[in-house]
């Protein structure tokens, strides 16, 4: 399926989901749905670096928080419409992602993961000590009660996150089927052999860290409006880092579909647990599921499906074709 048709199809599905939530007549579904959609963006963004390239990023919460705090800073400076905040959040997080990639170019495996964790700690310390955005006290963002034509403001936020999720999935799918996607796969498999095949691995890693960081920042940008009161402990929450990793791992990391399935499954389970038991069990659920999948299905749900179909290699979901002179074949 062509990318533009895929994008429109996703928009149609998004519209149906929105209409279904509207038909249920309870704003709670929009609150819960927003979180699931937010995790779709986060896990898809994580997967571009972690799944496609094999570089495990433990600092997802930092990029998410950067987006959120960019919105707070913008709000203090001059309140802007949320879509503009999303763009700014994406740019700031993308630049930081590029910087992180540049500083960690030579690191791999556990060393890279520790470096991303360190980045999150450093950024949280900076935010805690930056009074302009509320510092350790936190910052209030008073959101309007309603927003035309959506009615309640949460419906508007839901729609924004829906568009972001559609955008993130489309970008991930586009990458996967492009020359860039092949390059990322070679980095994941064997960097030395990739270089010997002419793949500019360092440049590609920078592209991956930038895109991944930018998407995470975009996911975080509307968050202050969603939560109303933003403090470092909520923006840099452990659940963002853990879920961003767990969702693609459970769904499957070699395709755009994996993070989507993982985020819907795990995000929905967590929302159900939050209202039926307690939000405190959310990370426990993630832990149990993660251990279960590592043992029973190390390649995630997608891997399980492929195991039974056995038609195509695990690294290929759908037919991968690429035009050497296509726009996405930039590097």
């Amino acid at each position: 399926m062509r990318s533009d048709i895929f994008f429109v199809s996703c928009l149609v599905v998004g519209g149906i989901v929105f209409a279904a939530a509207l038909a249920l007549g309870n704003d709670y579904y929009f609150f819960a749905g927003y979180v699931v959609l937010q995790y779709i963006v986060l896990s898809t963004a994580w997967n571009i670096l972690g799944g496609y390239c094999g570089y495990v990023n433990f600092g997802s919460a930092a990029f998410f928080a950067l987006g959120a705090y960019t919105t707070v800073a913008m709000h203090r400076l001059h309140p802007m419409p949320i879509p503009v905040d999303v763009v700014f959040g994406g740019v700031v997080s993308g630049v930081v992602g590029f910087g992180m990639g540049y500083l960690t170019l030579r690191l791999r495996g556990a060393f890279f993961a520790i470096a991303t964790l360190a980045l999150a700690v450093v950024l949280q310390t900076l935010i805690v000590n930056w009074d302009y955005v509320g510092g350790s006290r936190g910052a209030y963002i008073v959101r309007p009660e309603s927003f035309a034509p959506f009615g309640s403001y949460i419906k508007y936020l839901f729609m924004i996150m829906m568009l972001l999720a559609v955008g993130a999935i489309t970008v991930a799918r586009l990458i996967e089927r492009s020359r860039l996607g092949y390059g990322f796969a070679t980095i994941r498999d064997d960097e030395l052999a990739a270089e010997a095949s002419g793949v500019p691995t360092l440049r590609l890693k920078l592209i991956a860290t930038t895109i991944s960081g930018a998407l995470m920042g975009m996911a975080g940008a509307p968050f202050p409006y969603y939560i109303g009161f933003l403090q470092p402990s909520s923006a840099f929450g452990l659940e963002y880092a853990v879920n961003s990793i767990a969702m693609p791992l459970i769904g499957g990391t070699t395709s755009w579909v994996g993070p989507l399935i993982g985020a819907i499954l795990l995000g929905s389970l967590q929302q159900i647990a939050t209202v039926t038991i307690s939000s405190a069990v959310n990370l426990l659920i993630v832990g149990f599921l993660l251990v279960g999948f590592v043992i029973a299905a190390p390649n995630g749900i997608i891997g399980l499906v492929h195991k039974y179909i056995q038609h195509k290699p695990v690294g290929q979901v759908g037919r991968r074709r690429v035009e050497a002179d296509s726009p996405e074949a930039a590097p």
Partner: protein
Amino acid sequence: MTGLLEINSLGKRFGGFVALESISLSVQPGERVGLIGPNGSGKSTLVNCICGTLHNEAGSVHFDGHLLDGATAHQRTRRGLARTFQLPRPFASLSLIDNVRIPLLYTVAARGGALRAAHDIDERCADLLREVGLDAKARHLPRDLTQVEMRKLELARAMAAEPKLLMADESMAGLTHSEVEEILTLLNRLNGQGVTIILIEHIMRAVMSFSQRLVVLVSGRMIADGEPNEVVRNPEVERAYLGQ
């Protein structure tokens, strides 16, 4: 400077260990050069320095008239330097056809070659796999391959980069007599197409039948360079490498 590959006084150290000491070598276009030496003599280090996987501390490498010092491995590949690895390093999650697609996408297309459309690349991938006899397994993963097929995949991937010079690093290690012949046939065919080949190998029978010229490394030093039959009779070579 007339050679395709010109190495001048190349030196490489690992801490206090001298891996390569003042290596000078000139390889002419179309030549078939055998590079031999005992384990630890620096053969693979030399290949790594030429390909940019390692950086030499002394001396220089010129390829096709360009100074390569400071160039990354992928830049050297794009200039026409290809290699195979001592232990095959396929892209494990990609099918065979996608393994050979990578150099076409990142080297040939990046050079501005004729392959611009997806179907051209698909056809070229299929041709390459057919040349090495792996077309029937085009959609398989590398884990389904035998040892000799893995070596053939390495060669196909190197050929996909349309190299001017191929360094085959122990491409026949662990193969049977008939499998060695298969690889030699492939290398000879490639050489017949104008590709210069440096064969790094321990199987003397293969080296002697393939090489027009033999270079011997011992303890990081080049002790002989010349016509194969003369080189193997060199007393220093016999003492150091052939155990006589």
